[in-house]
């Protein structure tokens, strides 16, 4: 039992801290990145690529570093603290995980190096208007047509879907809308005929897209893995996504707590710093506790992200997501309260943490969704 980083992990952490201090040290920089047409600055992305961050989770044979859940946690923690806007989660974590776990060797060899080298952006389209947080709820269809598949349907709130060069789509090759079997994953070219995208800003200053697929022709070799059996890969990728955003949320909570404590020590009312008021002190202690409990579960999620047993992994992710979502809400709301009016303004950084935390709360399932899922799965205490 230990919580120490390996030497390699410490180096990784140091390098990303340095990189983010340089690229995000001033909050105005972030707001400037967002004004780029893609919602982020390619120069920052290229620096991620050069420093190896984009290659982190991939096998060495594809140009990667073979990093695990803890490595991703260290990166996402710093992204959370910096309020990073680049599509790391979409491209490297989510799409990357689908390809790592689902792609046949030829496909992996062709596409993973593109992610790892930063040559192309990928996104994962696994949500639909009716599906809410259920990955198996898929109405989009993929119909066999000669050597190809024809994809038809609508995908919702695809993270970084507007800037992606390739989109991984879940589509039904068999079965009814909510059946577990019959789901397949396809890798489609974002510029293929029949793909139309409506990109937009999200509440937290990042980007997403609504994507329509109208008779999109996809060659059969762009089917990821086996037909009808894509759900397991999809769930695994989203589990890794949950572990990643738990770490990001913890990073954001810790930064927001630090910002709030600093503010309380400088802001004066009634002639004294407001940090001298016990009611306010106790509230920030509760925020600290919420962040620490979330951190414990983010560590748990990172360590369980590589778990092969899907039921165990899913229980771990659900439990982490519940704790992190609840903590995120508590910290976000109370940080805003403790800041008073300044916390309500668009120009102040604090409110942007609050917004990012609020979006992370719901991403891949909110606290209610995961509590229900875990409650149905049985006792957490019996878990390994």
């Amino acid at each position, binding site marked *: *039992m230990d919580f120490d980083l390996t030497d390699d992990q410490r180096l990784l952490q140091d390098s990303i801290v340095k990189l983010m201090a340089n690229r995000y040290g001033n909050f105005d920089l972030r707001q400037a990145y967002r004004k780029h047409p893609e919602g982020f600055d390619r120069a920052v992305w290229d620096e991620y690529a050069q420093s190896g961050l984009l290659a982190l989770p991939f096998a060495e044979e594809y140009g990667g570093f073979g990093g695990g859940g803890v490595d991703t946690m260290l990166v996402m923690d710093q992204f959370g603290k910096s309020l990073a806007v680049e599509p790391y989660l979409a491209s490297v974590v989510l799409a990357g995980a689908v390809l790592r776990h689902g792609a046949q060797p030829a496909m992996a060899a062709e596409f993973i190096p593109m992610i790892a080298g930063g040559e192309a952006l990928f996104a994962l389209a696994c949500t639909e208007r009716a599906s809410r947080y259920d990955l198996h709820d898929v109405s989009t269809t993929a119909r066999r047509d000669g050597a190809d598949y024809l994809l038809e349907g609508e995908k919702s709130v695809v993270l970084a879907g507007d800037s992606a060069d390739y989109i991984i789509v879940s589509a039904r090759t068999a079965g009814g809308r909510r059946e577990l079997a019959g789901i397949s994953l396809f890798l489609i070219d974002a510029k293929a005929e029949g793909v139309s995208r409506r990109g937009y800003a999200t509440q937290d200053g990042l980007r997403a897209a609504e994507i329509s697929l109208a008779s999109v022709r996809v060659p059969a070799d762009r089917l990821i893995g086996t037909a009808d059996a894509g759900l397991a890969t999809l769930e695994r990728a989203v589990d890794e996504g949950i572990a990643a955003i738990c770490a990001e949320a913890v990073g954001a909570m810790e930064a927001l707590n630090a910002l709030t404590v600093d503010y309380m020590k400088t802001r004066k009312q009634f002639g004294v710093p407001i940090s*001298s008021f*016990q009611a306010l002190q106790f509230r920030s202690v509760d925020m600290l*506790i919420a962040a*620490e409990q979330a951190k*414990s579960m983010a*560590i748990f999620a990172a360590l369980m992200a590589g778990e092969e047993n899907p039921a165990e992994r899913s229980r771990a992710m659900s439990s982490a997501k519940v704790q992190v979502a609840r903590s995120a809400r508590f910290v976000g709301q109370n940080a805003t309260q403790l800041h008073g009016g300044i916390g309500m303004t668009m120009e102040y950084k604090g409110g942007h943490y609050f917004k990012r935390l609020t979006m992370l709360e719901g991403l891949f399932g909110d606290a209610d969704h995961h509590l229900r899922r875990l409650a149905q799965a049985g006792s*957490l*205490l019996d878990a390994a």
Partner: protein
Amino acid sequence: MDLSFSPEEVAFRDEVRSFIRDHLAPETRAKLIEGREIGKQDIVDWQKALHARGWAVPHWPVEYGGQNWSPVQEYIFLDELQMAPAPSALPFNVSMVGPVIATFGSAEQKAKFLPGTANLDIWWCQGFSEPGAGSDLAGLKTTARREGDEYIINGQKTWTTLAQYADWIFVLARTNPAAAKKQEGISFILVDMKTPGVSVRPIQLIDGGHEVNEVWFDEVRVPAENLVGQENKGWDYAKFLLGNERMGIARIGTSKQRLKRIRELAKLERFGDTQLLDQPWFREKLTAVEIELKALEITQLRVVAEARKRGKHGTPDPNSSILKIKGSEIQQATTELMMDVVGPYVMPFGASLDDEDQTNEPPIGPDYAAAAAPTYFNWRKISIYGGSNEIQHSIIAKAILGF
């Protein structure tokens, strides 16, 4: 990073587990599971069994019976006791006065008290709190006046847990009323409960049980050799003692054991046409507490790992205040869930101070119902004692947030 214990630690855990299985009286264990009161003999027998194995005072210096365990071993040991569940060794002896005597006591005091304290031949109680000195302990008013070779003690202590069983009491008393700071005039004195002028009056708590008392001192003459360490330095020893209380404060194992039992009992209870456990609302409430407990378990392990790094004699980690706050909240949440389980049978009141009121009549309702409400009421104490949760907030505000 790794959450699992090493093979040696797992072997140690199994050793603890099998020791408990082989040596803990089934009746004692049953009382703890069912929330019935455990008696003096349950605790004495168990501590003697632990001491025979060398495990009553593992955290003491080795020369007085300590085991030189790592913080991880200490955690595993306490967690296993709590999960069994087994009584803990008497905290007043093993976590409080024992380490104080071992660290600050005279050679004579060590020889006279430590063996019996470890083996629970001497039952200690804690004379700290007073009617006017709770969270502000240094405001205590009990006095010890030096006369020749004796101290003469006058005053009143309260919330004295299990004083009705105690042979000795360790008392904080004011020896220098003129000291500039109220912390500076306090001494730490050992008093035989049989000394003339010591009287114990029971306080009944809202659950009906008798676990705390008032202890009165009326011109109690104590040999001066019963002063621990230096006169007027008692506050330092008290702080040292309270710092020793930390390990196991979250009582994760206790909450684990209770949540498992709640899950079992919720299968026995009917709700409409199903088991209570099959009700989604109940499962979600239960699961929500399990998640908090899982998070706290990992937070606890983080604190233990930090203690291992810092060495055992570092200053108390202010993060253990987080363990106290969340640990007490979770323990209290389990008592609420247990009331949910028993439903209407939470109502019958069965406890009484007076022995003649005890009857052999069968329990009213299911046998597990009787303890639900008393435990709920009684366990409100957990967020009050050992430094109230508000005091813990103040510790974190100062030591971690720098307010």
